[in-house]
């Protein structure tokens, strides 16, 4: 203590120098911070470049391939351009529109169904005690452990009996089951993080459970809900084998139409489908993002307020 006091006095008696020293130390710290930032900038630039190489380059190749007839090794650029991809997409008999619409509809329906189920399951796991809870928790990740091909074989028989085979509804249900573990994992996290604090508050202020859900819980959980929905959407949208088996060829999605071209090595058409696949997914995700901005425009925080 005493030493501190002396130090303080010394400072006041030599104020001009003290101030200079202060100024100097400010400049120093600014330089240090700048230097650090420069280091960070260097690291992030490397990451950006790696990212571009890993993601955008293959994408570029797909875009190029969808307009290319042949691109033999070791040529750097495609040799012959082709409109075969465009013709297949827009002028073929089966038509892109209905297939794309059906794919999106199935994926959206799966996303809706799975997210609702996941939200309920996550809530049960987070806040309720019941007999066999740990078994139930384990059961929610079971579809993770069983390969979807095995699962598809098993469920097909059941679906045929139930009359769900070869129908879009059956495909939606199958997709939902496969994607559920992911949705439950996401929803569990956000449900636990959100807790029951605001829900209790709403209830004691006169809100019924339905209105609490509408006015408080859904807005609070919206970021998680949309993450889960996006996850299920993309899983459903890219599902091939399951769709083929349950849909029995009657239910056509973009993935099932695209797959034969991939396996037969028709890169032009496969790439063209890939492009549609990518763009439509991006579009739907963009819509989700808009939804989030619209309905959770105000800052949502789990840990404050």
């Amino acid at each position, binding site marked *: 203590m005493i030493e501190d006091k002396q130090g303080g006095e010394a400072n006041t008696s030599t104020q001009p120098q003290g101030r200079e020293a202060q100024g100097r130390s400010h400049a120093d710290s600014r330089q240090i911070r700048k230097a650090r930032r420069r280091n960070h900038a260097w690291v992030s630039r490397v990451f950006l470049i790696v990212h571009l190489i890993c993601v955008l380059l293959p994408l570029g190749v797909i875009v190029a391939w969808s307009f290319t007839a042949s691109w033999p090794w070791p040529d750097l650029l495609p040799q012959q351009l082709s409109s075969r991809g465009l013709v297949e997409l827009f002028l073929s008999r089966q038509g892109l529109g209905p297939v794309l619409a059906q794919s999106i509809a199935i994926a959206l329906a799966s996303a809706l169904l799975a997210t609702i189920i996941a939200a309920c399951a996550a809530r049960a796991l987070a806040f309720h005690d019941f007999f066999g809870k740990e078994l139930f928790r384990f059961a929610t990740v079971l579809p993770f452990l069983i390969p979807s091909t095995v699962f598809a074989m098993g469920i097909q028989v059941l679906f045929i009996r139930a009359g769900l085979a070869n129908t879009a509804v059956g495909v939606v249900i199958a997709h939902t089951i496969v994607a559920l573990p992911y949705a439950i994992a996401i929803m569990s996290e956000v449900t636990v993080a959100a807790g029951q604090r*605001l829900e*209790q*508050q709403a209830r004691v202020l006169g809100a019924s459970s339905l209105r609490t859900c509408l006015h408080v819980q859904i807005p609070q959980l919206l970021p998680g809900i949309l993450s889960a929905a996006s996850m299920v959407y993309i899983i459903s949208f890219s599902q091939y084998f399951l769709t083929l088996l349950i849909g029995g060829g009657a239910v056509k999605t973009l993935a099932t139409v695209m797959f034969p071209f991939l396996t037969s090595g028709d890169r032009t058409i496969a790439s063209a489908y890939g492009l549609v696949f990518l763009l439509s997914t991006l579009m739907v995700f963009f819509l989700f993002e808009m939804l989030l901005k619209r309905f959770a425009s105000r800052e949502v925080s789990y840990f404050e*307020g």
Partner: protein
Amino acid sequence: MEMKVQEITVSLGRRVKRTILDSVSFDVKEGEFLSLLGASGAGKSTLLKVIAGITVQDSGSIIFDGQAIDHLAPHRRNIGFVFQDTRLFPNMNVEENVAFPCKMAGMSRKERMERAHTLLECVQLDGFGNRQVTSLSGGQQQRVALARALAAQPRVLLLDEPFSGLDEDLRDDMRSLLLRLHRDFGTTTIMVTHDAVEALEMSDRIVYISLGCVEQDGTPMELYAQPQTKEIAACFGDCSTLEGSVSDGVFLASSLQLAAEGMADGPAEAVVRYQAVSLREAGVDVGHHATRRPLLIRCSVYRGDTHLARVDVEGQTLTVPAEQSFIPGMAVDVVVDDQGYFIYPM
């Protein structure tokens, strides 16, 4: 509104049932400000949640104006609840938060916005209606929570340690604001607190709860002047607790003796308030003092307005406020005021 809490018992826990509240009963009069005082973990908050309907009791009954409300869901009980952590809805602005209970009660938009406006004025936050709740300071958030709890004219206002998350200087302002609101609105209020001085300052009546049981139910003066248990006597702070024994109506700890009339012989504890004790230099005869032999000063600490001398009572500490600091090892006699100590059997 008149309210009765009747023999509320609550046990929580899945495998091992733990009794949180054990047959708690008390009455609350119309317009009364009642504090539930007790150490943390005593079950005060649980009791508040039972009244609100968030926690369901194992047995017992909550009665509003002569009618049991145990079967009513929380949202049908018409109560206002302020939690310690404010719990404002982050997806609504200040105004919408305050208007929320009115919206749930079915008020029209115009009406409830007017109501929100009035209440924000009452808590000195007019002009804050359009602000985001995250942009407010802790004290402002708590005031919004208070306004929201009062918005739908609740039958009873429940407050769960409403000020313990705030800075000390803010707490005083909030206390007077709450008392003013209580005066203006006349809402029957139950506040949970572990701050005994806060309870003294604010309440018409205090119910002291310890380990799930009511230990004393009385006015602030009664609790302060006639605490029923050692815990209550000690909860107001600034006191020393000494272990000793009673024989022939006298409590004895080392050479310190205190009158304990009407108490059975046996081991006992004394709670001695700081301000009831003073020190005399040993050997200076001032007549009546409580020590048979002089005691030794262990140390002395500075506390701003006073010094606190720690007197050694056979390994136990008796703290005494003093005008000057004492040298460790000094021998002193102790004088104890009759009103400022309480003796309880152990």
